[in-house]
């Protein structure tokens, strides 16, 4: 799988490149700002572009805007955003058009080789990846408005995993239950939240996130 790395800190960028290479990814290129990134993806067409949200010159939302541009120009290309802070708004905004092949991870996760490579692989495969911390935040906020009161604890766990972008199999695996059980939980959640039940995986992530976002 071919990836590019965009990160303005040399230290971190080189660390990421080495880590990804060790995990068997092909690092097709690296850049330190958004303009360079856009030229790079046009040129090398990676499977996944790994992008830090804060990039020069203003260190605000250059990464988010670059991600949107890439997803317009190269619809099939995976984009994984790395953020220092949890910002639910920008994550949901970027993926609201098309959640396929989009991921949003907290920077801390990259220290964990498994979590990073798992996320890159899933995004590369067209899945959605939302950082568990983002989901936790959304759930907490939603609870404040007490719309999730009706859900059982188990259903809330399933909802969180759905929001992270996990498929039914992945959820079953994680919770160590059968596929049928997960399907039942999912059905109940959708009914209780009043959501459209027959959605594909990536549509489902979006629906759940949008619901949580309010």
């Amino acid at each position: 799988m071919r990836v590019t790395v965009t990160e303005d800190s040399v230290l971190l960028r080189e660390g990421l490149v080495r880590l990804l290479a060790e995990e068997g990814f092909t690092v097709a290129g690296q850049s330190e700002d958004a303009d360079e990134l856009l030229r790079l993806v046009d040129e090398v067409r990676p499977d996944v572009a790994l992008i830090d949200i804060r990039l020069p010159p203003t260190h605000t939302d250059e990464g988010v805007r670059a991600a949107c541009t890439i997803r317009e120009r190269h619809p099939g290309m995976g984009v994984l955003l790395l953020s220092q802070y949890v910002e639910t708004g920008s994550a949901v905004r970027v993926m609201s058009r098309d959640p396929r092949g989009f991921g949003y991870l907290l920077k801390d996760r990259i220290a964990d080789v498994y979590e990073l490579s798992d996320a890159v692989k899933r995004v590369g495969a067209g899945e959605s990846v939302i950082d568990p911390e983002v989901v936790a935040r959304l759930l907490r906020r939603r609870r404040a408005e007490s719309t999730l009161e009706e859900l059982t604890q188990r259903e809330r766990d399933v909802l969180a995993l759905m929001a992270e972008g996990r498929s039914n199999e992945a959820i079953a695996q994680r919770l160590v239950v059968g596929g049928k059980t997960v399907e039942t939980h999912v059905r109940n959640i959708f009914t209780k939240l009043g959501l459209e039940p027959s959605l594909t995986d990536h549509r489902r992530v979006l629906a759940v996130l949008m619901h949580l976002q309010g």
Partner: protein
Amino acid sequence: MRERVPGGVRSAGGHGRAREGGGLWLLLAGVVALAAGIAGGWAYARAGASGPDVVRDVTVGWAFAGAGLVARWRRPANRTGQLMVAEGLTWFLGNLQGTSVPVLFAVGAWGEALNLAVLAHLFLAFPDGRLTTPLTRRVVVSSYVLVAVGGLLRVLTYDPSLDGSATYLTCGACGPNAFLVHRDPALFEAIDLVYRWVGAGLTVVTVVALIRSWRASCRARRRALMPAWISVVVASSLVGWEVFYVLAPGLLGPGEEAVALLSDLSEIAVPLAFLVGLLRMRLRRSAVGNVVIEVGADPTPRRLQDVLGRLLGDPSLRLGLWADEARAYLDPDGRPLRHTRPGAGLSVTPVGSPGSPSAILVHDATFDDDRELLAAVGASVRLCLENTWLRSEAAMRVRESRAVNSRILEAADRERQQLERDLHDGAQTRLVFALMALRRLDAGLSDSSDARLRNAVAETDRTLRMALEDLRGIARGIHPAVLTREGLGPAVTALAEQAEVPVVVSVEPRRYAPLTESTAYFAVCEALTNAAKYARAGAVRVSARHDDGWLVVEVADDGVGGADPARGTGLRGLADRLAALGGALRVTSPVGGGTRVRVELPCA
């Protein structure tokens, strides 16, 4: 700066002297008028006048003298009083022809028409007491010359024993004339005819001059002139009626006596009307005291000008404020004043220190003699203007200090933002990198049997993650990146997501100035901290909306209440920060009734 001084800067010296000598002058003039009236009445009666005629004659003369004395007393700087006294005295001069003393008869015959010249002088000089136009000066001088020269020529040829109808007295036993040098009835008649025609001509010119001056007058002036002219018109028309009766007796029968009475009364009313006109102008001085009250809470130059114009009855009044930049006096609309020098019936009164008046009043010349009025007006204007200046200066100081404060806060805000970025780019990145390195180390140790080593690695991993978490919290406290990037709504939402208490957020999606956003954000932080820490709140509601140039942020909890912004540094500091930006903080926190923190920030 000298060129700023408009003409006619006044000193109070002359005025003071006029007043000191006023008492003696009044006394003497009163005694003389009394004596003149008694002598005149006696002579009139001696010439054969009826009782009522004598009473009427003396009353009119004394009315002029008396009104003149009052006018002189109340308006010492105005010469109208003197003129009226002069009229009262000369009124009786013609009566001297009723005595049998030849010199007195001659003087009486010579000065018989002097009171008419004085009357013309009085009319034309009213109400200023001065003759302001060349025409009026010429008319008055001509009248006096006519009486002096023409009257003298006439009296030199006048023999009362030959012509008894040459005077208004029924002069059977008048004279003899001490000045008679040439007894020639034909010559006398010719001189007398010319004398009367020239007099009639001067009367016409006087009337024309009066009409012209009336038409050129402003409302204030007309108001002063009005009673006098009404009385003059009424008196002359009644006298006209009387003449009509004399010419065609019995035409209207018994009405004759009534007309005669009204005519007498109206003649007496003339001097009184002049006095009323004069004093009415004076009354305005007390009205000036109301300027400050009327201007009240709106001391703008425009309002001040309007109020002064109204109180003085002079709509032509203009207020000019000295503007250093323009080097000119500007009217309330900011345009340079056209007349800054006296002339054309206008006068200029400087306001403020005599050397460099900060303002001028251009007004009708009517008020010139009333220096007390002008001094009062000047004082009121100065008071109002100083008020305005002090007010605008204070407002400017407040604006300045507010600008300085917000610049300081902005600089501090930028520094915090920079600090946060430095933390992000430096320490946080290094910590993440260290974690990555540690992970690789851990992977390398996976088949090592040294449990202590692996524990140490796990311990280091935990510590690093905690350090990263701490650092993130600190950076967020310094300046949240999401605030800069996405604005108040997402930043407050992020705050709410981490709050220990459930928080419902409704924030209008809108961007404000960075300092406004960060102030509002930290206000919400403070309120949420208080809600979690002290209020034992079960739920909090945060709202922010734009309301007519203000950002209004409200944080309401359902906790125990009783918060006092005077205690505790958090709310105090917040209030100071808001005050520096021209905003306001309101905390409503009844005990047991929850706490509502309302923040208002000015924004474009």
